[in-house]
C-alpha cells in the first residue's frame, strides 16, 4: 500500500514537473540564491577572558567579549547564520572551578549559540554537574550516540535538530567520544556510548530522507585523527565511512586546521571536516551557497577553502 502510494506520487510528481515548466513557478517564493553561514568553536575550555600578553603563542588571543562582536557583525552581514560548538565547554580556568560552568553557558546563550554537542570534559563535575547548569543554557544539546536514558540527563538532549534558515533546512546531529578509560565512570554514571558510525547512518537517513534536509552537519567530539591509533574512530574515519554529511565540525584533539579538510565520503562525494584548535582562539566560518535546482550546473558543488 505504501509502495503504491509512492508510485502514484512519483507519477503525479512527473506530471507536475511538466506542468511546472508551463509558467506556474510564480507560486515559488524562494529567492534565487540563499547563503547559510555556519560559525563554530570547539574546546573553548572555560576560556572566557582573552589570554594575557605573557601567554606565549596564545598571547592576546581569544576572549568571549571579542568573539561576541565578531559574531554580531557576521550576523548583520548574513542573518541566516548558525552558531555551533563541538564540546568541551567546561574546564580550564578558575571560572569553571568557581562557578561550575554557569558563566560559560550564560555567555553562550547571550552569543545566541544554536547548539552544542557534549565533550568528555563536560562531565568533569559529574553528569549531575552538567545537569545543574542546564537552566543557564538557551541552546540545544545534541548527541546521537550517548544514551542518557538511565541518567539525570534523560530527555535533556536531542539526537538531532533541524534548523530552518532562509528557506534552507539544516539537519544537525552530534557525536561524543567513548568515555570509558577517558572519564571516571563515577562522573558519567550510566551514560551508554554507542557506535558513532551506526549512529551517523541512522541520523543521516532521518535527516536526509524523512526530514528532507538540504544540509547535514555533524558536531563531533571524536577527535580529528589518531595517527598512532588508526583503528580509533575519528572525524576523518567517520567522514570516509558515511554518506550525506556535508560538514563535520570536530573537537577534542585541539587540532588547529589552517583550513577545512576535504574528504571523500563512502560514495566518493566531497565533504568537509573542520576544527579550529581550542580556547576560543579562532572562530570557524563556513558559507554554504544554495541555488535553485534549475540553475544546477553540471559541475556540482564548488568548494573554496
Amino acid at each position: 500500500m505504501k509502495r503504491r502510494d509512492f508510485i502514484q506520487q512519483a507519477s503525479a510528481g512527473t506530471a507536475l514537473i511538466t506542468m511546472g515548466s508551463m509558467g506556474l513557478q510564480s507560486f515559488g517564493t524562494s529567492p534565487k540564491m540563499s547563503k547559510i553561514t555556519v560559525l563554530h568553536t570547539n574546546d573553548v575550555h572555560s576560556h572566557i577572558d582573552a589570554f594575557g600578553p605573557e601567554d606565549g603563542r596564545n598571547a592576546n588571543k581569544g576572549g568571549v567579549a571579542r568573539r561576541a562582536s565578531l559574531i554580531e557583525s557576521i550576523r548583520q552581514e548574513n542573518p541566516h547564520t548558525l552558531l555551533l560548538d563541538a564540546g568541551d565547554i567546561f574546564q580550564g580556568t578558575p571560572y569553571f572551578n568557581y562557578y561550575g560552568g554557569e558563566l560559560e553557558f550564560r555567555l553562550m546563550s547571550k552569543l545566541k549559540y544554536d547548539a552544542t554537542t557534549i565533550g568528555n570534559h563536560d562531565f568533569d563535575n559529574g553528569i549531575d554537574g552538567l545537569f545543574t547548569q542546564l537552566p543557564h543554557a538557551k541552546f540545544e544539546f545534541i548527541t546521537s550516540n550517548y544514551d542518557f536514558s538511565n541518567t539525570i540527563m534523560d530527555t535533556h538532549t536531542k539526537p538531532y535538530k533541524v534548523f530552518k534558515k532562509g528557506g534552507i533546512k539544516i539537519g544537525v546531529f552530534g557525536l561524543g567520544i567513548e568515555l570509558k578509560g577517558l572519564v571516571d565512570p563515577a562522573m558519567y554514571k550510566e551514560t551508554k556510548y554507542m557506535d558513532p558510525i551506526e549512529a551517523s547512518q541512522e541520523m543521516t537517513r532521518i535527516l536526509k530522507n524523512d526530514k528532507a534536509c538540504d544540509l547535514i552537519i555533524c558536531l563531533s567530539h571524536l577527535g580529528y585523527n589518531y595517527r598512532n591509533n588508526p583503528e580509533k574512530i575519528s572525524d576523518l574515519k567517520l567522514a570516509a565511512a558515511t554518506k550525506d554529511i556535508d560538514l563535520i565540525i570536530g573537537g577534542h584533539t585541539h587540532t588547529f586546521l589552517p583550513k577545512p579538510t576535504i574528504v571523500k565520503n563512502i560514495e566518493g562525494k566531497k565533504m568537509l571536516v573542520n576544527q579550529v584548535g581550542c580556547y576560543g582562539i579562532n572562530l570557524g566560518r563556513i558559507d554554504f551557497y544554495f541555488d535553485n535546482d534549475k540553475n544546477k550546473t553540471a559541475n556540482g558543488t564548488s568548494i573554496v577553502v
Partner: protein
Amino acid sequence: MRFTYLFFLLNIFIFFSCKQQKQHLSKISASKIEITDSLEVNAKIDAFIKPYRDHIDKDLDSVLAYAVDTYSKSDGKLNTALGNLMADAIYSEVNPVFNKRTGKNINAVILNHGGIRSIIPKGNVSPRTAFQLMPFENEVVVVGLKGKRIQDIIDYLITQRRAHPIGGLKLTLDKNFNLVNAKINDKNIDPTKTYYFATSDYLYNMGDNMTFFQPNEGFYKLNYKIRNVLIDYFKKVDTINPVADDRFIQLN
C-alpha cells in the same frame, strides 16, 4: 474513482507548486577567523563577565603564605624543594582524612614530576599559585601495596632518574644508579606488610607509565583535589621555605 484520482493529483500539484523549489548546494567557502586584540570588545558582554571576574580575582589573589624564594621543579636532580613541598603537603593534609575514614595511616607519597605545572615565585602565595601549580582536577587516592611490590616503584624511579615528588620513601643510589638503600618511614621494607601510598587518580590509572598501582591491597578515593590540598596547606603555613633533602639521592 477517476475523480478521486484527479483530486489526488490536483492536491499534489498544488502542494508541489507552492512549495519552495528544491535548493541545490552550489558553492562552499570557508575561512578561519582569529580572535585577536584588533577585534572590538563587546562592552555588554564584558560588563556581564566583570562581577564574576572580580570575585575570582579577589579570591585567587588573597594572600595565604609567603615564599622566601622562587622554587622550580628543575632545581634538583632526583629531589627538589618544590616537589618535596608537594609530597609533604599531601601527607600532612591527607593523612588525617585517610586516618579518620579508615583507621590506617599513609606510609608514602608519590606524584609525577610532569604534574608540577609551574613554579612558586618568591613573594606572596595565593590560591592562584595553587591553580597554576595544579590546574587539573586530579584527586588524591590511596593505594595499599605489599612490601614486595614496592620494588616496582623503586625500579621505576631509578630508571626514570627524574625528581618525581616522593615522601615517606627514602632511596639512596650509588654512582652507577644501583640501589644502596631503600626505606619507608626510616625502616627497612617488609615484603609481607601492606604499605599505603597516596598518589593522584591520574597516576593510579597508569598515567606517566606508573603501572605499579594495580593490582593492589585496597584502593581509597578521598574526593580531595590536589589543588585543594595545596590551598589548605598554604593556609596553614605562614612561610614557604622547602628544601631539597636526602629522600632520593645519588652518592658520589
